[in-house]
């Protein structure tokens, strides 16, 4: 953390001579943030009469919605309105989808739910408490459908269709061919292949989504305040969904953000949803997303399967690549997806000179939360495949992984380098950067540590990753998903227009506003540095306006904060606007100073002639002239009051007919290496030493870059070792709290060695490139490569949890000892992973099979057997509707359950099935029961499978198995008790006896 130290020793950095840009100036915005003075979206006042929204969400991964009964909920105190898919159909439209597929995605489920957490209804009430009270009273009837929970399942044509009209769970497939890979594969000495999976995860901002929405019936327009972060290409999507023009959807964002990392893009469906709610209720509406909602249903990075094949020569040079990328976009292809898959299309070959490339891109639909923007967007996925492949090549060909990287890097002499797929790597000397990192980062010492550790029998490995970090996305890259023919019909899309406005006021104050929403990039600081330098002013003379309003600010569809575009595009555009304004001020001053405009200088709050510094004006006096005395301006001179600039990077063209696309304006370079140790006993990974070398072009504020690198690194450690949005095989969501979705803390994140080179970008106005996403792309695979090196294996799956690693390094589990004379103990319950629960058991009942059969078939008896059953009504032959209160300890839910007996073979066997739902979620179970006559009476054997979904599964995953066993045990113990037998089962006498006594079911 050298930069932090150097900043601390120069607190008055701005008082030093020279320009402010390039100096490690501490963040000006932090005073407000750290003292609690910052106002976030939820802190902003609401209008009188505002209703508060609570959203009813699907507990099912996949189900038909048969009916929604809001009658009881509407009568609850404080409830003003309840909005369902019916209202959505009346006042809204489905969202535009970025692929040509007949897929309808509405802001509220219409007739089907496709992921756990999908919005089904909204209660609008006087406050959030009352709204949530009413949520529990809405009754939704679902018919569950088989879920699709993996990419492999989506690829299976037999899987249940999420969108029957699409006709497949693969929404789009595109093939790309660059060069002649086939002939390379024919002649290459080696052909190597590797398949990897990248998990679903997210950067989880501290602040969740917030929307305040109003509808103005006189104007027929919507006004919304939300912490939406862009891209504003989504603004037309929202306006279309609300059936209005863009001008009638006024969208404002607050001055401060509690983090986004791209995630706040995914608030947009809720902007539409709350607009709809405001229109239906006729009142302003506010909604604040809670953490459970966010983790479960906000957004996620895409999961990706990559099947890679490389044609390689003897020394590790990659001659050609074939890559199949199958992207898990979740239940809907939600804007701007499938951008995750195409954002890196121009840099699919990374930092390497690989001329021949064949690509198959598929978009898979699964019953999971729709994916969206997330720091590193598509890069973590791509490089996990590419850099694992480079490591695999080295290991297979018995080469040093570093040599394989060296032999494939784009040489400095080739810059700017046109990639096979159309990218323009703009600047840098990758080989020299690698060598510098090795030298300054201490690779030789690290190798010595590894050798020493290995000599002691420890598991120690070194990993590498070399990547390019794209920034400033081309708005046309997403159209690469379309064929050239489709693109011609749709019209060209390209560029990345940024906007900035700079104004001087009559006192000489300067304000700047940009079409970008701050999320931690330091807008306040960096823009003040850039603008102050232009006008020769101090940081405190510059007012950076960080809130944003589509009705008043200059913007275009590329506006917003994403794809690392702040330093390169936004700050650069502010510089252009400021320079134009300065030029006009210079012309004004030239007349007064009697010099030529190009001789006018702006320094230290003064405006003076370069040739005669005594010939001077104060900046404020010059600024005032345009305001106070426009009538006395020289002939033909416009007052210098305000300047708005739009800028788009020149190299960003639309995809060519051959599908070449320069997907980003500039490309930084990152080289990482690290040493990790794996604990043989526990399988835990410890990051021993991490070096990350960046070339992000010109650094506008090195301290800010350091913060960005640290933040991205911390999140990447999470991706590598801890974080995953986990789903059960039934599609149930299992990571509903921060006790289950594990974000590393400062305890788990080591401080990396951060190194820099600066190769200014020829593309951006200030030479800066993006720097904030790189480690999210490079670090997960660098750690994975190090773990693979430590373990000497090739299969590493993220996150690298101790349990997974132990499974890789442990041999056979020691068998269960057999105790002579004792009956074989039951095997522990096996679950196939996820929350598909299953088990079996048997009990001896002192009654004949006929007597037991009679108990099971008698509704009164059955009611007494079912745990917590309060009512059981016959609704058909052997089928019942039951009211049950089920729970473990204090956690209890009232379920309305359907119970049915089937496969009746009296008095030998039957199947008992039940399913129910409550505000806590859903439960479903099937038990097959056989009765066997024995000398003691009847042996009752049972086999069960169960599924638990919704909230309980999302936050209680650790205890579901044992809780299910407890409940099933209760049923059978009651059966034994009813049949007149002892309540004590063989295996766990004390537990169950006490439990039954506690429940008043046994003596």
């Amino acid at each position: 953390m050298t930069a932090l130290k150097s900043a601390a020793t120069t607190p008055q950095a701005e008082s030093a001579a020279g320009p402010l840009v390039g100096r490690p100036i501490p963040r000006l915005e932090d005073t407000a943030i750290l003292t609690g003075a910052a106002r976030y979206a939820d802190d902003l006042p609401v209008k009188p009469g505002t209703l508060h929204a609570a959203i009813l969400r699907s507990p099912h991964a996949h189900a038909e919605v048969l009916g929604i009964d809001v009658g009881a909920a509407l009568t609850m105190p404080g409830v003003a309105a309840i909005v369902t898919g019916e209202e959505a159909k009346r006042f809204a439209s489905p969202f535009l989808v970025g692929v040509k597929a007949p897929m309808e995605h509405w802001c509220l489920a219409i007739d089907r739910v496709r992921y756990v957490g999908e919005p089904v209804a909204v209660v609008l009430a006087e406050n959030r408490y009352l709204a949530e009270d009413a949520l529990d009273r809405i009754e939704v009837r679902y018919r569950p459908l088989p879920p699709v929970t993996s990419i492999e399942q989506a690829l299976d044509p037999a899987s249940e269709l999420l969108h029957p009209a699409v006709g497949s769970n693969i929404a789009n497939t595109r093939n790309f061919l660059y060069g002649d890979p086939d002939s390379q594969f024919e002649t290459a000495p080696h052909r190597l292949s590797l398949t990897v999976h990248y998990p679903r995860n997210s950067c989880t901002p501290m602040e969740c989504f917030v929307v305040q929405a109003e509808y103005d019936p006189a104007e027929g327009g919507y006004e919304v305040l939300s912490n939406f972060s862009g891209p504003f290409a989504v603004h037309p999507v929202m306006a279309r969904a609300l059936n209005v023009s863009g001008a009638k959807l006024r969208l404002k964002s607050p001055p401060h953000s509690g983090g986004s990392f791209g995630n706040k893009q995914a608030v947009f469906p809720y902007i539409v949803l709350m607009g709809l709610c405001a229109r239906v209720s006729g009142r302003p509406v506010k909604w604040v997303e809670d953490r459970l909602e966010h983790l479960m249903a906000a957004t996620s990075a895409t999961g990706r399967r990559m099947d890679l094949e490389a044609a390689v020569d003897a020394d590790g040079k990659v001659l050609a690549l074939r890559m199949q990328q199958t992207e898990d976009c979740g239940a809907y292809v939600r804007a701007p997806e499938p951008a995750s898959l195409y954002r890196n299309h121009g840099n699919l070959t990374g930092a390497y000179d690989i001329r021949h490339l064949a690509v198959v891109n598929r978009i898979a639909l699964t019953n999971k939360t729709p994916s969206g923007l997330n720091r590193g967007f598509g890069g973590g996925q791509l490089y996990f495949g590419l850099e694992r492949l480079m490591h695999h090549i080295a290991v297979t060909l018995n080469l040093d992984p570093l040599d394989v990287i060296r032999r494939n890097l784009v040489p400095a002499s080739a810059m700017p380098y046109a990639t096979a797929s159309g990218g323009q790597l703009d600047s840098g000397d990758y080989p020299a950067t690698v060598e510098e990192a090795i030298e300054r980062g201490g690779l030789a010492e690290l190798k010595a540590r590894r050798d020493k550790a290995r000599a002691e029998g420890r598991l120690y490995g070194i990993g590498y990753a070399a990547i390019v970090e794209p920034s400033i996305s081309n708005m046309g890259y997403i159209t690469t998903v379309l064929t050239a023919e489709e693109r011609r019909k749709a019209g060209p899309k390209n560029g990345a227009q940024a906007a900035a406005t700079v104004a001087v006021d009559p006192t000489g104050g300067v304000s700047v506003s940009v079409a970008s929403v701050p999320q931690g990039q330091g807008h306040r600081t960096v823009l003040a540095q850039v603008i102050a330098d232009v006008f020769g002013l101090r940081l405190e003379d510059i007012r950076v306006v960080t809130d944003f309003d589509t009705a008043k600010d200059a913007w275009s569809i590329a506006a917003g904060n994403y794809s690392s575009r702040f330093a390169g595009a936004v700050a650069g555009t502010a510089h252009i606007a400021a320079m134009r304004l300065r030029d006009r001020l210079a012309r004004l001053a030239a007349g007064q100073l009697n010099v030529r405009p190009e001789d006018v200088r702006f320094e230290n709050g003064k405006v003076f002639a370069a040739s005669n510094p005594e010939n001077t004006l104060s900046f404020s006096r010059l600024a005032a002239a345009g305001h106070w005395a426009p009538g006395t301006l020289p002939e033909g001179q416009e007052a210098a009051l305000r300047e708005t600039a739009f800028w788009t990077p020149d190299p960003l063209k639309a995809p060519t007919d051959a599908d070449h696309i320069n997907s980003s304006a500039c490309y930084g370079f990152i080289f990482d290496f690290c040493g990790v140790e794996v604990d043989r006993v526990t399988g835990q990974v410890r990051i021993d030493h991490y070096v990350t070398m960046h070339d992000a072009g010109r650094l506008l504020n090195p301290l800010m870059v350091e913060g960005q690198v640290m933040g991205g690194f911390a999140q990447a450690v999470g991706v590598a070792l801890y974080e995953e949005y986990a789903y059960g095989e039934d599609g149930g969501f299992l990571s509903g709290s921060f006790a289950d979705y594990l974000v590393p803390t400062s305890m788990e994140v080591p401080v990396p060695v951060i190194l820099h080179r600066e190769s200014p970008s020829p593309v951006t106005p200030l030479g800066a490139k993006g720097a904030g996403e790189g480690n999210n792309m490079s670090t997960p695979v660098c750690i994975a490569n190090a773990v693979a090196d430590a373990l000497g294996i090739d299969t590493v799956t993220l996150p690298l949890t101790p349990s997974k690693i132990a499974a890789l390094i442990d041999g056979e589990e020691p068998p269960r000892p057999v105790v002579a004379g004792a009956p074989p103990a039951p095997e522990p319950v096996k679950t196939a992973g996820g929350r598909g629960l299953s088990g079996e058991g048997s009990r001896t009942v002192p009654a004949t099979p006929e007597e037991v059969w009679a108990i099971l078939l008698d509704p009164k008896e059955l009611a007494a057997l079912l745990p917590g059953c309060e009512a059981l009504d016959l609704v058909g032959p052997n089928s019942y509707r039951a009211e049950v209160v089920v729970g473990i300890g204090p956690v209890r839910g009232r379920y309305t359950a359907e119970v049915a007996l089937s496969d009746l073979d009296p008095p030998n066997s039957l199947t008992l099935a039940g399913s129910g739902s409550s505000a806590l979620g859903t439960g479903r179970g099937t038990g097959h029961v056989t009765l066997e006559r024995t000398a003691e009476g009847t042996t009752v054997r049972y086999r069960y499978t169960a599924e638990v979904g919704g909230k309980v599964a999302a936050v209680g995953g650790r205890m579901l198995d044992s809780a299910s066993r407890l409940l099933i045990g209760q049923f059978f113990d009651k059966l034994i008790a009813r049949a007149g037998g002892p309540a004590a089962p063989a295996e766990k006498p004390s537990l169950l006896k006490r439990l039954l006594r506690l429940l008043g079911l046994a003596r």
Partner: protein
Amino acid sequence: MKPAPFDYLRPASLSEALAALASGGDEARILAGGQSLMPMLNMRLVQPRLLIDLSLLDELRSLEARDGWLTVGAAVTQAELMARPTLAEEVPLLAAALPWIGHFQTRNRGTVCGSIAHADPSAELPLCLVALGGEVMLRSARKRRSLPAAAFFLGPLTTAKEADEIIEAVRFPLRKAETGHAFREVAMRHGDFAITACAAIADRNGLRLAVGGVADRPIARDWPLLAGAELDEALNAFAWDLGGDDDQHATARYRRSLVRRIGRTAIEEALACRP
């Protein structure tokens, strides 16, 4: 994430609390530190009609070592217990285990008895109570009783405490002569719910290992002074008896493997630190 409506009572005395609990019955819950209950309330997993807050009752703040026991009242926080200067001599296992419980912020509010009452199968304090053979002092408007720890924990979040009872205090036996203690835990991150936690106690005659996070409650097993392959066999049998379940973070097999490995380490450490 807002709780369902409930009444909140801050009683002036324990007897008022017990009377309220007796009349509230199953619909009343006790609030102490709230580190588990408040999130459960906010998620509406628990929906009591009445919340009785014991945290400010001076009667329940006792923390004293007497007659061979360290008695910890219901309002004593984990941080207060941890800060007791004599704890490492009195109950060394607790001193070793307390830093593993959540984070200092949660320990500042979380109570010792609250963790016992919550009965999370992975929690450290129930594990220590079972390992040490401690007792749970229960009290209702009707009666007082105490239960040995092993009889108190029945399953996940499930205990032998009746609806009208509160845990007035728990008590841990004070260290016995010639006894060594050790605590080991593996969790995903520091402060997380244990994947497996082991508490070992050794004296001149035998060993005890108690394990949390594997079965549906903490379970202890006693052995004579085993070593070498015999100890491995005993640990293996214990691991299989505990069983364990898969969840998204760890497999049952991994949990059993930790019983064998960190269980052994803990036992060796306990043996080594016998005075």
